[in-house]
């Protein structure tokens, strides 16, 4: 068997030979009949479950559809909520409004990411020196998690400009600030929960390598913690995406407001449905992206394995 191994190598220590391939890899392995049978069975099995899922989905969809179409008011509802012509006419203005939403969402996300990270970091500081700061951030998160977003929007959007010290800015700017205030409180708590879920032995390991408290947080605890809470963060993101629609109460012409205008003109609710669908479409890529990303991270870091 040793005949296939390369020219005599100097003796190495035992652990060093793990990676090297020698001995029996002369010919690539031909799968046996058993392995092929097993592979075939597994394929059949998964094909069957896909089929079952498909059939049951179609059956449920058809039942729901028939049930709805046969309700007495369906014709009227179809006309006033799902009218294709109105939808098409409302689309440009609603899309334009949605662009405002996207801008607000973009800046609010960045703001939330920064503020929430700061808040979570402050709350994780252990030293008594930081007590006042820690106390303040705790008070902040408690306050803003409790306040309804709508009320914060009113207070910030109408209250602050009324002070008369700030230059006039569009309503969506105040909307963005209000969203950042609310959502960074939520997200900070999620991040903190993630950091606390990282096993304490990880902190020990990092500190014993000589990393500072800050480095430990940044390089070891945070990356692991954020993985644990990605679904929760995602949830907050999608939730914020919807709440961006609330800035219409400040008079900003976003998708909801544009739809509202259209509804007032046409006496037909279809524009709301259009706006709703656009919001769903908006959130969809992000949801898929996170799913893909977490799956990839899991594949890379965790042992393969069947469980």
């Amino acid at each position: 068997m040793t005949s296939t191994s390369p020219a005599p190598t100097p003796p190495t220590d035992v652990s060093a030979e793990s990676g090297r391939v020698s001995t029996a890899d002369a010919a690539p392995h031909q799968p046996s009949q058993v392995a092929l049978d097993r592979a075939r069975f597994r394929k059949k099995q998964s094909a069957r479950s896909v089929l079952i899922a498909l059939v049951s989905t179609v059956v449920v969809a058809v039942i729901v559809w028939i049930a709805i179409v046969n309700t007495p008011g369906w014709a009227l509802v179809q006309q006033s909520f799902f009218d294709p012509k109105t939808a098409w006419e409302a689309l440009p203005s609603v899309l334009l409004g949605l662009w405002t939403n996207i801008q607000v969402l973009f800046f609010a996300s960045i703001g939330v990411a920064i503020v929430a990270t700061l808040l979570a970091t402050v709350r994780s500081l252990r030293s008594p020196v930081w007590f006042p700061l820690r106390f303040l951030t705790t008070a902040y998160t408690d306050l803003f998690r409790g306040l309804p977003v709508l009320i914060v929007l009113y207070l910030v959007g109408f209250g602050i400009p009324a002070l008369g010290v700030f230059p006039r800015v569009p309503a969506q700017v105040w909307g963005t600030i209000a969203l950042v205030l609310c959502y960074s409180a939520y997200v900070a708590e999620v991040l903190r929960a993630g950091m606390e879920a990282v096993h304490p032995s990880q902190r020990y390991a990092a500190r014993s390598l000589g990393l500072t408290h800050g480095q430990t947080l940044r390089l070891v605890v945070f990356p692991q913690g954020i993985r644990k809470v990605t679904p929760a963060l995602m949830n907050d993101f999608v939730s914020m995406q919807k709440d961006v629609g609330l800035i219409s109460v400040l008079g900003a012409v976003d998708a909801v407001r544009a739809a509202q205008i259209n509804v007032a003109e046409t006496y037909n609710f279809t524009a709301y449905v259009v706006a709703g669908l656009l919001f769903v479409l908006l959130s969809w890529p992000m949801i898929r992206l996170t799913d893909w990303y977490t799956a990839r991270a899991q594949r890379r870091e965790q042992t393969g394995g069947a469980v």
Partner: protein
Amino acid sequence: MSDTDSGAPVLSMRGVYKAFGENTVLRGVDLDVHRHQVVVLIGASGSGKSTLLKTVNLLEQIDDGQIFLRGQDISDPRVDVDATRARIGVVFQQFNLFPHLTVLDNVTLANRRVHGMPKDEAERIAVELLGRIGLADKLRSYPDRLSGGQQQRVAIVRAIASSPELLLLDEITSALDPQLVGEVLDLVAGLKSTGSTMVMATHEMSFARRAADLVVFLKNGVLVEQGPPEQVFDDPEHPETREFLARVHAVG
């Protein structure tokens, strides 16, 4: 199963292949483990010992070959994996105790939730076993409060609490001091006399020599040599075994 078929090996591997992507880790492993036998896997780091144990426990899906537990092909996709795993006890290389459960709950979990044993009986068994290895005073402690060796012993007790047909032990003595190695060895010998069958991976040749009925030398996923400890350690047939042992002795 009954004693009538005790002629069949408890565990039998036939031509087992396992690859992680490009890296083929097991290359056609054939191994028979008979009842009451202690089989010890030796080999360099990365030679596939842990992987072999994981394939037996169905934690890794094999790419080819078959694995039989008491004559039943457990590599068949139709078998109930959970039921199969419930018949096998495992102590992992990293102990993998559940940090949110006390020592007692770690040990009684499978008996209560998988084997449907009443709580007091499960606890009686756990207390008895933990007492035997000197951990009677740690019942209510959480794993992270225990020393490495203590965690190791709890992990062993957790694996044997349900009297599995087959025990897979991955380097169970790696975190222990010499005296505890002796105690674990006694534990293993005791388990053997009560009918357990074991496969264990270890780097400790003296432990392997004392505990094993059969020593198996693995190199790059190939089962190079197997035999009773006297033969493999004192008079190895294969040059690769000799080379490995020489290196181990040179270091140790």
